[in-house]
């Protein structure tokens, strides 16, 4: 049998646990947590939970730009 929380983000599981443990609400967990990948609501939830340590401006900007920048503008030590 497939684990009902498989494929869920950590933050989503945490939210459910908070609600269940701290507020005593059971309705949240009774809903099937597996949603289709392209379903807008599911995606909205994902975009709200930006928790990964790499999900920061500098990390992502370097990821997206720095290689092409070095190629065009030269070594980073030239700019500092």
């Amino acid at each position, binding site marked *: 049998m497939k684990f009902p929380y498989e494929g869920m983000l950590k933050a989503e*599981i945490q939210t459910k646990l908070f609600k269940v*443990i*701290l507020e005593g609400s059971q309705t949240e967990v009774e809903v099937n947590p597996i949603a289709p990948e392209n379903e807008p609501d599911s995606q909205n939830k994902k975009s709200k939970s930006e928790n*990964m340590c790499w999900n920061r401006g500098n990390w992502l900007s370097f990821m*997206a730009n720095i290689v092409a920048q070095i190629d065009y503008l030269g070594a980073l030590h030239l700019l500092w």
Partner: protein
Amino acid sequence: MKHLKQKHNIAAQKRQKTSEVSEVIGDIPDINTDCIFDCRASQQSCNSDLLNESEGEDDRDDSNLLEESFVNMHIQFVENENKKEDEEANAYVNKFMDTDLDPNTPGDEGDMYDDLTQRDQDHLNHNTNEVGYSYNDFLFFDKRTEEEKCFRKGGSRKRVSQNQIYFFQKYQKKRRKPDDGSGGFDGLVHRANIRNREDTSKTTRTLESEQVLLMLKMMLKMSGDDRGDLVQYHNNFMKIYKVDSTSHHDVETRFPSDINDVRTMIMDGAHSIMKNFPVQRVFNIGNHACVSLLETILLAAGHGAKFNFAYDARTGTRNYDGLNGTEAVEDLMKDVIKAMKEENLDDETILKTNIGWIYFWSDSFLRCFIKQKENSVWVLTVTICPPENEKSTGNYTHVLAMGKSGEDHTPVVEHFLREYQELMKGFKCYFGETNEIGRMAVSMLTWNADRPERQGLVDTRKEGHTGKVSNWAVKVSENELPACDKCYNALVRNIIEGTDRSYTCTACFNWTLDQEAANQEIIPVDKDYPTRKENQNDADEPDGRKPGQTLLGPVKLTSEFMMKALNSAYNARRNNAWSKANLEAYLKSCNVKGSRISHIERIAVEDCINGRISEPKEYQPEIWSLLDCFARFRLPDLPMHGLAHGIIPDVMDILHTILSHHKKFTAFVAFANPILHDVASFRLDYVKVKSLPKAAWVGENSMAYMRVFSYLYGMFLSNNPLCTEENETTRETVLNIRCMLNAFQALISVLMSRNPPEIKLIDNHLKLFLSSAHYLHKRYGSLGKIKTKTQNKESTSGVGQGGQQTNTRTKDFINQLNIDNLQIICQEFRDDKLDGVKPLRAFLKKSLSTNCRPSVFN
């Protein structure tokens, strides 16, 4: 060049003391940049939490603010400091309130030296037939208005331009003695000495003017009382050696004998050295004190700057040194030549024009760490193609504008963008180094700034969702962006084996943003995102952001994209086709700043009511039309901000979070500090480490720490188990840390290498590091999880309130668990459909009370 630095210092002092500047920027007593940068580093460290927690769609920049609670706690201290500082500032401002150091301000010389002046200036007009340049050839130094040139309003007799005569005399002397560049200062000393700044007939002997220069340098560092003491000291020596009674006809210079002489000859008087030393004119743009870029370059060149031109017209050679060897400078040269051709300059003139680059730097900084909101100052500097070995000396960097950070800097930015575009056409210049008048042209290579400053400059959003990645409009998907297992393995293999096996993965984005990839269009639009209307003309909207889209992908920003987005949004809103919410949702998805959206909303609604159509320039930022600011990495990601104040402290935080969680942080600090002290004791200029914990670190401290990163954490974890009772989880954590540390050290090495390896290798190292951080986070749990304001309040209010406190602890505990363990907890209690809330709660409470991880994790 001999005294270049000293003279620059004088100019800097003079600029700093100009009353106009004080009036414009307010009461700024003294700017100790060392302190500023230390404070800034410290503040950045302190506030990284706040910066992260403000990552909503709100695009306010909170990075310069301290926590409210901190300010409240220190309110009394703050008030006292404010009062004290205000008093100091007022005293300082009053001191200079009546001081005018602009050489163009009329003095009292008009009446006193009427005949003498005319006679002493005649020689300037009579040397035009001599070999070499005449006084008039230096006319480009004279930036005075016609009115300012005359002694009296409406009069015909003209005053000497102090800038022009300074460099003309420098040229004359250097022509006679090629190694002596002191002619300008010699003339200045002579004019100050005879108290007639119009007398250009003579110059003081070099030995005497050198003595005056030394005295001036000392006096600029002294207070008024100390200056009097120095003069007295000098006089006493004269008496002791009885040289004051001897006649010295060969000494022409009368050195100051009391504080009045100091004022009239050196510091303040109409004929004084400080008053007539060549500096740029100060003007006001939007409450910013500004100086001209052209004048700055002219004075620097005149003083003997050895510009590192990309194209040297004297030798007719192309220079590939440093930045000159990059594709960016190649493109810049093409732009400059194109601009000159558009000015209809002939080929010979173009060939005789030196071509160089400049880069701007702007940022806000605090002049007072406590009064943060009111005291932040914004500064704009320019660096003019410095030689590689003098880049860090500061001799080629000049302040162009200064103002309060709260002011709108847009007019200043636009002014200097327009000015540099004029300078691309070339201009006449006196090169003090070669003692020649020639032509040079410059263009902007980059505008260097940190991320908030860049976002402010180009009107994009700050640390929200869509503004997080510089030069992109994208909401990052945490699920799809990281490399999947297959891609990660392939990456590791490629790096180890030195191969380049690439394949298209459909399961992940492999740390790549690609606006052409259809599979990256996965982010659902906001509920208010505009829908497609019938008969809608798709050509009006930019590709990637069409109304009616349901899913959005990444878009690389260009000025064209941004202008199209703004135009279509304005038109749709003006025609009432979109609601305000539609407009906001659409422009947010295009990474347009919130205040700009409000501006467009206001104009569109007003135009709709009044039945008029505004020109795009009325609602678009001018910078987008002045140049494609998003292209060619004109606003680059910089290592000082991105690495030294960004990723390196972030990685340190991650590691320290793990160590703190296992109660090993104190032990680590005790282990690391003796090593750091030893390394620091070597006084190596490339390893300027500071001790832990990180406080008031500047960029080079972080970079130095980076050099010993792997060693420190590696050695510590090799000799100290993460947990007293080591288990599989802790061993796995250490393994993941090791992966991340090594990947990070390798990445920084290739990024900061003087000879960067091939681009593909840098890309691989970047992905390896991101993947290793991703897996560490995924396996370990909440890393770098910053408490939100709400959580902070909850924590505080929970103190002493049993249930609340337990809840907070439970939350904290759940936060600490990694995803596998969370799933295990759910699995454990799923049979009773979490009807087992009570047993689950009991289980967690037990876990919390024993302060150890549940057995299910072992």
